[in-house]
């Protein structure tokens, strides 16, 4: 999982730096698909990171893919790369073909939101990321285990909506749609687990985004001069930025732990489930505290649309709630902890570092 070994990570970072600029991100919010950016992503094979080489993918490790997702978050990438990776991962799991065109995931909050009768799909799902811009919708429904359905978005009704960050978060209605392809997921994956993987994807993106917000904050504090010196010299600000750094460190540790747990068996197994619940729970405070400090240090300038800070903070505020908020996941984790009971609490905590 070392980033230095990962060519794919370096490539991703270079592309994002060059092509995910403030102008591109703003234009995307205005509805302009960043063609050049996606083309570079496609050419570099980034969307195929998680696809085995036999299926035409890059066959990088799951951890390399998570590193790309973290870099995407750090760059506030305005295209569904993380979603495409997860969609591709689901397709590969179900033994289906994956392409390089943009995809997104359709993971209904309630299993009952979608009805799949074995031939046709009906129902409405809201908050589908980038539905209007992708070529394929990768839908997960339950029924004899998890099923993956690939749907042509042209066959659906898409209502354009946005999340807090202005990202396209559309409502998609399926009126008895026949999927392009369909396959059963292996026993280790169903709708709940796919949603958990999506929650993890948001944690990893957020860990990256919060890291960038911290760097911008430090940089701004060193440049902005008031009372004759850089504001970085004021102890009050030093202390809030130090606390912010602690939050960045914590969410990176939590997200890495969860990503590694999922990578271990290439599935959201019982252990990964707990780690994801912990990371998504931990994310709220990191975002809440971190974004507050970032804005406080940036003063009024950081409150403007022109300044790029909001590319990060608005995404952070949106992502912490997606695929289960901290309230949702803390209850799940809390119930697991109750199931362990007092005497198994500590052994369960230490089991994470046991050799396997």
């Amino acid at each position, binding site marked *: 999982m070392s980033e230095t070994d990962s060519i794919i990570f370096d490539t991703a970072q270079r592309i994002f730096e060059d092509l995910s600029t403030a102008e591109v991100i703003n234009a995307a919010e205005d509805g302009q698909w960043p063609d050049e950016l996606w083309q570079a992503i496609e050419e570099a094979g980034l969307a195929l990171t998680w696809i085995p080489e036999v299926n035409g993918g890059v066959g990088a490790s799951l951890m390399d893919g998570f590193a790309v997702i*973290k870099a995407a978050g750090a760059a506030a990438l305005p295209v569904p790369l993380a979603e495409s990776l997860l969609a591709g991962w689901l397709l590969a799991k179900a033994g289906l073909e994956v392409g390089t065109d943009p995809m997104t995931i359709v993971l209904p909050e309630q299993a009952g939101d979608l009805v799949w009768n074995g031939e046709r799909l009906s129902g409405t799902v809201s908050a589908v990321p980038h539905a209007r811009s992708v070529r394929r919708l990768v839908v997960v429904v339950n029924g004899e285990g998890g099923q993956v359905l690939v749907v042509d978005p042209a066959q659906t009704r898409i209502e354009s909506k946005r999340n807090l960050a202005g990202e396209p978060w559309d409502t998609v209605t399926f009126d008895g749609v026949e999927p392009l392809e369909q396959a059963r997921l292996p026993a280790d994956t169903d709708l709940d687990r796919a949603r958990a993987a999506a929650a993890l994807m948001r944690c990893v993106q957020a860990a990256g985004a919060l890291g960038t917000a911290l760097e911008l904050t430090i940089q701004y504090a*060193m440049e902005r001069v008031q009372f004759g010196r850089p504001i970085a010299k004021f102890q009050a600000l030093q202390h809030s930025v*130090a606390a912010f750094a602690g939050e960045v460190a914590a969410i*990176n540790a*939590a997200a890495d732990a969860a990503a590694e747990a999922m990578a271990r068996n290439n599935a959201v197994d019982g252990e990964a489930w707990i780690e994801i619940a912990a990371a998504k729970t931990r994310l709220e405070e990191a975002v809440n505290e971190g974004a507050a400090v970032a804005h406080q240090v940036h003063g009024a300038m950081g409150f403007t649309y022109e300044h790029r800070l909001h590319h990060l903070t608005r995404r952070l505020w949106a992502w912490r709630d997606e695929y289960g908020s901290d309230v949702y996941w803390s209850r799940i*984790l809390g119930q697991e902890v109750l199931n362990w009971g007092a005497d198994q609490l500590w052994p369960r905590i230490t089991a994470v570092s046991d050799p396997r």
Partner: protein
Amino acid sequence: MSASRFRFPHVEMPEVAVQLRAEVREFLAEERASGGFVPMADCWASAMSPEYSRKVGQRGWLGMTWDKQYGGHGRSFLERYVVTEEMLAAGAPVMAHWIADRQSGPQIIKNAQPHVRDQIIPRIVAGDCFCAIGMSEPNTGSDLASVSTKAEKVEGGWRVNGTKLWSTGAHGCDYMITLLRTAPPDAKARHEGLSQFIIDLKSPGVQIRGIADIGGQVHFNETQFEDVFVPDDYVLGEVGQGWQMVVGELALERSGPERFLSSFIVLQEAMRVLVTNPSDKTREVLGQLVAKIKTLRRMSLGIAGLLEEGSSPEMEAALVKDVATRFEREMLEKLRSILPAHILAASNGLLPTLLREGILRVPSSTLRGGTNEVLKGMIARQLGMR
């Protein structure tokens, strides 16, 4: 994976550490069952039991990482981590040996005269010799370079005069590793003129007076030195190098599991009550607390792993201490918010006692070993803001 400036790698314990963990758990269960100890909140700073520490020493669990040639056990940092975290999680009375095992021993091995080292280290390893830290003074807290307790050169050694304050456990200790002024203060070179000494607390002229904390318990002390003679060979390292030594010593102790597990036992005991008819609020709080503990353990253990590899992640260690010590307060406050009223109101019983002790100890966790304000200043410096 980490496009981040902070690194907390996953640590996988070696097989031998797993075996060791099982042994420690068995030991703790037996001790607790046989009345060898009653669990305590903030146990590493409030539960002193020389008998217990001797048993730990007999098991080979003190001085674990120290070289065998000096009397240590030559084991890994990760094995030591296992022993310390297990004892903390159980609320075991580890205070007597804690400081000697964590920081004084390594300091002595590195900097003491060989014959002094050989006289002290094997006794620490046996759980038979305990150490205190003498840094703070009445007029010296965060600004450690301002110490004024003096050591003056005399024939064959040094004459010490002054007062050290807040010396944890000194009333039960054999030695104090003491930071003293050996040259007059120089405003231009504030970190010079300081030296570290090993002072035998049984020496004539040493007076130790216990200080009651807010709970009325005596865990720390005022230690007065009146013309105390310290032989030359009890100077640690070079005269005048005290500051560098102290800085290294403080870095060593920053990110250990005691920064977030000192009252873990309160959570464990609270669980026995909370499992009955849990509300959603209870689930949320337990989920939040366990999420944080898991994250902190990942961070703290990650640093132990980096130390094992020979790197010294100072920034990460400072971050862990800041985040972890703030969590200690949060944990007790959140537990309070979900425990039934009869537990909060009760004046006896294990859980009510642990909770009270924990709450009364909590203000110290963001003070001792350098306050969180000072720590944040160091983090800011590492971030380039100072």
